[in-house]
């Protein structure tokens, strides 16, 4: 069972080299981060790094799973996928522009930073997204009805 006789393949060697390169690159990054403490403020950076991880693993995922569970109770099967996908898209769009529509950031003396009515704009974008979702749901409903009519004994 010992592998002493097995010669590593080219693929294994390449993977080994990629791993070594990855380790070197990672080490370079850590070294750089710790080497400029005035700019990077390592304890702060570490808090944000670990904080993001914990926020995702202990909050974002469980909340998403809970929402998914609720959806299984609220929305019937052929339409649920549309609602799930649309929710994913909505949350992504909202996160990508979070500081904007929340009114964070910007500079008081510089009206060209974050200059738009983002709350209204987000509502427009999400409205359009959900309009597409509603159209998809309607199409599915129509198809289901046609299917039932075509095969009345179907279900």
């Amino acid at each position, binding site marked *: 069972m010992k592998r002493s006789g097995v010669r590593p393949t080219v693929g294994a060697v390449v993977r080994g080299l990629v791993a070594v*390169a990855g380790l070197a690159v990672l080490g370079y990054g850590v070294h750089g981060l710790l080497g400029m403490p005035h700019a990077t403020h390592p304890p702060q950076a570490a808090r944000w790094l670990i904080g993001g991880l914990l926020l995702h693993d202990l909050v974002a995922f469980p909340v998403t799973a809970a929402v998914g569970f609720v959806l299984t109770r609220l929305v019937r099967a052929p339409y649920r996928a549309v609602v799930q996908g649309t929710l994913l898209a909505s949350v992504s769009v909202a996160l990508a522009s979070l500081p904007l529509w929340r009114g964070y950031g910007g500079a008081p003396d510089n009206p060209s930073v974050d200059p738009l009515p983002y709350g209204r704009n987000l509502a427009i974008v999400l409205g359009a*997204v959900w309009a597409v979702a509603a159209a998809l749901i309607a199409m599915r409903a129509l198809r289901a009805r046609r299917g039932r009519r075509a095969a009345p004994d179907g279900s």
Partner: protein
Amino acid sequence: MRVLPERLPRPPAIPRRGPLREDAFPSRLHDPRMAALLGIWLGVAFGVCFLTGLVSHFMQHPPSWLDWPARPVWLYRLTQGLHVATGLASIPLLLAKLWTVYPRLWEWPPVRSVAHALERLTIVPLVAGALFQLATGVANIAQWYRFRFFFTVTHYWVAWITIGALLLHIAAKVTVVRANVGRGRAGRARDAGGPGSDQAEPEPEPEPEPEPEPEPEPEPEPEPEPEPGPEPKPKPKPDGPGSDGPRTGEPTGDAVDIDPRAAPDPAGTGLSRRGLGIAVGAAAGVITVTSAGQFVPGLASLDLLGPRRPDVGPQGLPVNRTAAAARVRTLARDPGYRLEVVGPRPYTLSLVELRAFGQHISTLPITCVEGWSADATWHGPRLRDLLDAAGIPAGATVRVESLESRGGYRASEVRPPHARDPLTLLATGLDGADLNLDHGYPARLIAPNRPGVLQTKWVHRVVML
């Protein structure tokens, strides 16, 4: 190295509760093919972000041997616009990817071998770094600074950490990807167990059960068929109609013997793999369409959720740092303003003389590191004419200094390709009018293919280095 794949003793049998339960994650999207496909796209996106980020970094901090070209004029606009747009589009990709692989966080036993432990350890910098880069990027383009570290430097170093962890992750997972993606993956899945193909691969081994039987051998050994054999529970018919491997969630690591595309998504249980792909693509598309107008000419009207509009600002052009923020309001409006050109034949010019020095027109984008850019028509004397008048040789680098008394961007170096480019101006006006104070009145540098922070404003000195 031998010790790496060595199997560690099993942890004591504890009741598996909560997320440790076998069937804790029923979504069929927690499956290796989905994870591999999303991983590829995310890898491409992060690769683009990393490379364009390096371009931006080394344009701002060029090593002595690297003179960036002044052409094409639009290069930095493209790379930096792409950097921000790709980062924003990565948000749904990353969320979906983390969703598919989350059950791995709770896999049991937590570590199977030293190699497996190391591989799991690399996930920490990978996920933390990826979330960090996207979050700080989103905050920075909105100029929202809740963190106390300096954005550019920290974002730069964490990029190296993230990419390093990504390379390690690729090395660890490439066999899983190959077994789940592309033509002939079924064959590769079978081979993956073959001798020598992936010695330290922790992945393709079957998820050990609460153990009624001897552990499946982790190392791909020369014994025939190591992997499907010991698989106790997923009905492992690769293409039988009943095989819905992905259904059970648990990406049991048996990536290798499932050909998930052969297993049609069971209808009506929620989002399918294809559905998730479409949703992620649609989300990325909506984000891109509603924000890319901040750097793509002609798309400004679609720019609903970008932090900048290329046509909003004084004189219809955005500003990053105002005269008030730079504390130059008084100095810049001083009628006694003089431009000093320091070289072999130094001289000074008043603003009137500077305007009379020669008026050239350049249409050049101002391109910010925050990803927005806007075209504008500038006028003023060519930098190279000013340098010639001072006897500064063509091969010389000059430093352009602002009236600002402090700050990292109060001066910038202009190397010969930019200093001698006929489009490079010491602009005194914009769109036929004098410069607005916030755009750098009385004079600013504007050069092609150059980050906005180096287009020094409120210029009062040009010094040969």
